């Protein structure tokens, strides 16, 4: 059944008449044309679809659009502010924390959620925190380095 649902995507208010049971991922990708969140498995097992819902890293394929009504959604497209990359994005560039880049939006936003909860994670806490996000290219060690670098810089007040 269609209902009117409102939320914000990357600061922009959206008002949609949709079936509230549809997943946030497909509403973002098809209705709104926001393709940064990737479809990987569709079953909540890979993390490619990760977005921020009220600053918490969530799997967009596991959220219905009804569940995010009234929330602030940030996708990878909305992380850079005024054309300035977020320290996590900068660190992923510097360390080449990706190969094909398909998991990268999810990786960066998952790391964002991780650092929001724990700004000074140890290496093993990073590894444990990122465990649900899969990369099949093999960029894992560089992803960890990138998150370590970003954590350092953000601790110094950089955002």
């Amino acid at each position: 059944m269609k209902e009117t649902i409102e939320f914000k995507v990357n600061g922009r208010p959206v008002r949609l008449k949709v079936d509230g049971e549809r997943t946030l991922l497909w509403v973002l990708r098809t209705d709104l044309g926001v393709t940064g969140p990737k479809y990987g498995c569709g079953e909540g097992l890979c993390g490619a679809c990760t977005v921020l819902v009220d600053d918490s890293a969530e799997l967009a394929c596991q959220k219905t659009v009804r569940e995010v009504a009234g929330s602030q959604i940030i996708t990878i497209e909305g992380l850079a502010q005024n054309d300035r990359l977020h320290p996590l994005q900068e660190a992923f560039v510097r360390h080449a924390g990706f190969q094909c880049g398909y998991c990268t939006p999810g990786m960066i936003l998952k790391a964002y959620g991780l650092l929001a909860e724990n700004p000074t994670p140890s290496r093993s806490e990073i590894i444990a925190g990122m465990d649900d996000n899969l990369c099949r290219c093999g960029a894992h060690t560089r992803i960890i380095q990138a998150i370590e670098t970003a954590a350092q810089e953000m601790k110094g007040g950089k955002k």
Partner: protein
Amino acid sequence: MPATSMNRREFLKRLGILGGGIIVYFTGFDRLARARTQRAGFLGTGIPTDFNAFLRIGPDNRVVLYTGKIEMGQSVMTSLPQLLAEELHADYNAVDIIMGDTDLCPWDAGTFGSLSIRYFGIFLREAASEARGVLLELAADHLKAPIGRLVTKDGYVYVASKPERRVSYGELTKGRIIEKHLNSVPPLKPSSAHETVGKSFPRRDAIEKVTGAAQFSGDIRFPGMLYAKSQKDRRAYGCPGGRFCRRSS
């Protein structure tokens, strides 16, 4: 895929509009080159011998590299320009790359099997080396000095003893289309002489991949595009939740 919509004349016309340049064709008459072409062909990356332009030097001294390869994480958007800059003695930062445009790029069977550098890379280096040879010939005329006394670096040809006497590659090719058919394998730099290859350069696709701007095939949208999904009977496949899974025989 073969550029069936365009013939050589059409291609040259387009290059003319772009301001000319050097085109190197591989004719494959050389036995060694032909053996290699066939070997590569067996692996699915056969290089046709009639229509295969790899590079163009524009009047602004920028070099465009054409390839049918695509970037999918192996970083060829960055490493192929390194190979080209190395053999052409061009500035790496002056090399642009156009990938997979079937109107402009040489035929290619596809991007797979770790073949981009190992096979296409060889053809690219040979094209660059040959183009450099052509540039030296043009420069000898332009600078009124024998080729043996010329050196090439960062997109310029210099008189070795008088470096102030120089000419850019772009000035040499300006407004002209120079076609060169490669009939033998040109000399390649030994790895000990490499300056650009072997160094790590920032990935050219990095920014678009961390900002979500990178378009993967599933992200491409056309007006009126429809979505299709294969549907399977969950009972017939006996899979909980209707997931795809392998049916046991």
